[in-house]
């Protein structure tokens, strides 16, 4: 009734989760017994760095300036340092996102009126953000922050075009629907 691949997958997932549970046991106990720090701080800042600094990490302005110097050593040093800064920024951001979710789960785990659908939506949003952070880490490691900025710009333009196409399609199908309804 249950195939070998399913059994292997299930057994492996269960084993990994048990290992994770064993590892996180002490941490979970510590979190639960912490002092009365406000749990849900709405004003907690997400920005680990000043905004003017963050906008420069993935921008090509500094890179263009360094390229003008025609010094290979300076370019190499710049690339290495900027990559490091970008990686630290992604780590800090993903930590801040994890903190948001941790504060949420700590506040809602005792709630009597929890909504399953809302929770699933929040978990999906959280998973998407963590996936983006993971992909950013990979992209920065392999291509460097300047190229990631370019890729992100391209992806943004592409997604805007897709959204526009979807909107156009919606307008056309709604128009047809109205037309049919009118003729009926």
């Amino acid at each position, binding site marked *: *009734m249950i195939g*070998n691949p399913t*059994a*292997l997958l*299930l*057994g492996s*997932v*269960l084993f990994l*989760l*048990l290992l*994770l*549970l064993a590892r*996180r*046991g002490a*941490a*979970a106990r510590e*979190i*639960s*017994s912490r002092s009365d720090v406000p*749990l*849900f701080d*709405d004003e907690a800042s*997400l*920005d680990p760095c000043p905004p003017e600094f*963050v*906008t*420069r*990490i*993935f*921008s090509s302005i500094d890179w263009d300036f360094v390229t003008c110097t025609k010094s290979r050593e300076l370019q190499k040093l710049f690339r290495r340092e900027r990559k490091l800064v970008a990686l630290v920024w992604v780590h800090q951001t993903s930590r*801040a*996102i994890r903190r*948001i*979710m*941790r504060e949420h*789960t*700590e*506040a*809602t*785990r*005792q*709630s*009597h*009126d*929890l*909504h399953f659908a809302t*929770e699933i*939506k929040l*978990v999906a*949003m*959280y998973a*998407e*953000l963590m996936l*983006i*952070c993971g992909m*950013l880490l990979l992209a920065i490691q392999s291509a460097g922050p300047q190229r990631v*900025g370019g890729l*992100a*710009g391209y992806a*943004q333009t592409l997604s805007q075009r897709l959204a526009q196409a979807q909107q156009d399609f919606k307008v056309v199908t709604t128009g047809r629907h109205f037309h049919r309804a009118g003729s009926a």
Partner: protein
Amino acid sequence: MLGQAIWWSSIALESLLLFRGFRGRLASRYPAFYFYISFVLFQDVVCFAVARWTHSSDAYTSAYWTAEFLCVLVSCGIVFEIYRVGLAAFPGTARMARNLMGLVFVVVLIKLIVNIVKDPQWWTEASARGVEGTLRAIQGVAIVALIALFIFYSVPFGRNLRGILMGYGLFVCWSVFCLTLAPPTGRLHDILGVLYSALYPLFLVLWLVPLWSYQANAAPKRAIQLEQDYQRVAIATQRRLHEARSYVARAVGS
């Protein structure tokens, strides 16, 4: 010789586990778990008696698999107990667990119905080992869903409940591997059969150490404040996650 050693060590460890459970008043706190251990001890003694006095492999096989099937049904109580005791102080997570388990069982039921429709002879052709493997796999899915929620909501555990969950989780994991991956006959079937029984005393030790004496579950120190109702918290989290997404998009797209 190895079989006798496994049998006697299992009976001794199960008896010790029950003795410590009743002496430390753990049995009244975890009744489903101790009922399961009592049942397994009873099964061991009955199977041992059948093997010794009947000298018939058919009688032993039918006694063993009947008891084993009942044992799997009784062990479902342990999963329910982990949910009941672990989430007693966390009604929000308990509600998530109920919904998630419901969803998981609906999916499993649909898969079961689809498989039976595709192969109606399954019930008559399935071996006892195959049925047990399927039931253990369903338990495994339920435990995976529960552990994922425990980790995600940072639910704290006492030593006793952690011991029950870790021991039982590993036992189910091992059962799923052995019962479903073993071929119907042959050398690998024999090896996995011996390994399946041989590791059981190890799981009993894994239970015995954390269940030697009672230790209360860590209760959450901070009760939820009245003004922090779920809707408010959820809306604030959604807003903060949206902000985080636009923050990342702004920084990277600049």
